[in-house]
């Protein structure tokens, strides 16, 4: 007798449905983990350009963008944003599109 999982409506779920549920749970965990968007310094991108890109992508004020740009330049890298992984990936994609060197790292 099939004693499979039932959905909220009481209907029996077949074997194919079960992994989907697990996948959704994992996805929730994945997106709930805080992630940092990190921008790296490079000798090519003009400082003013970096500040403008940060303003455009993240909506930072000029002051905030310049402060972060200087942190990138002086420290070699800086965390410019923290939050959910999916949104962080979207930001990194935009940074790469603007030819800035950027990645994600788990927030400590």
């Amino acid at each position, binding site marked *: 007798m099939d004693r499979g999982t039932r959905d909220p409506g009481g209907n029996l779920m077949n074997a194919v449905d079960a992994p989907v549920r697990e996948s959704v749970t994992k996805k929730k965990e994945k997106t709930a983990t805080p992630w940092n968007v990190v921008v790296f310094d490079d*000798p090519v991108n003009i400082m003013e*350009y970096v500040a403008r890109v940060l303003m455009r992508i993240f909506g930072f004020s000029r002051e905030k963008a310049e402060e972060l740009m200087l942190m990138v330049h002086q420290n070699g890298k800086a965390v410019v944003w923290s939050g959910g992984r999916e949104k962080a990936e979207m930001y990194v994609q935009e940074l*790469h599109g603007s*030819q800035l060197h950027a*990645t994600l790292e788990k927030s400590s």
Partner: protein
Amino acid sequence: MTVMPTINGGIKLTPESDKDWAVLKAIAFDAHEELAARLGRLMDEESMWEDIVVPDLKTHFSGQLDHVVKAVNEGKEKDEITIPKEEGELWYGALNQARLGLESKYHFGQEEDIEPDELEEEERQGYLRGRFYCAIQTVLMEYVLEI
């Protein structure tokens, strides 16, 4: 070469010699061939960047270069190149790819550390092209780009 802002919010490049045209034609040659992949290598495997994002970035970057190559070829016939406001980002991106390519090839590092006369000739030519590209980018940023 003269670089001047136009009243329509763009800039006009007026090359004055074959050497100027040669430098403009070198933009696509100097551009980093694997920029999208190199940026992608900064990401972890979980992101599947190589499969999902890198192909789009490659298309985006090659589109910038294609645009500039076409504009330079067309400009050669008129002895000048006009960069309208709406094309400023394409030019800026192509010039940036060229500078990233030169940096990747020659590892110049920070500009203040470079003494051009001490470089080998090929490297020196690359360094000077990079400065030339940067000068155009600076004008684009001051007069054209809206970001």
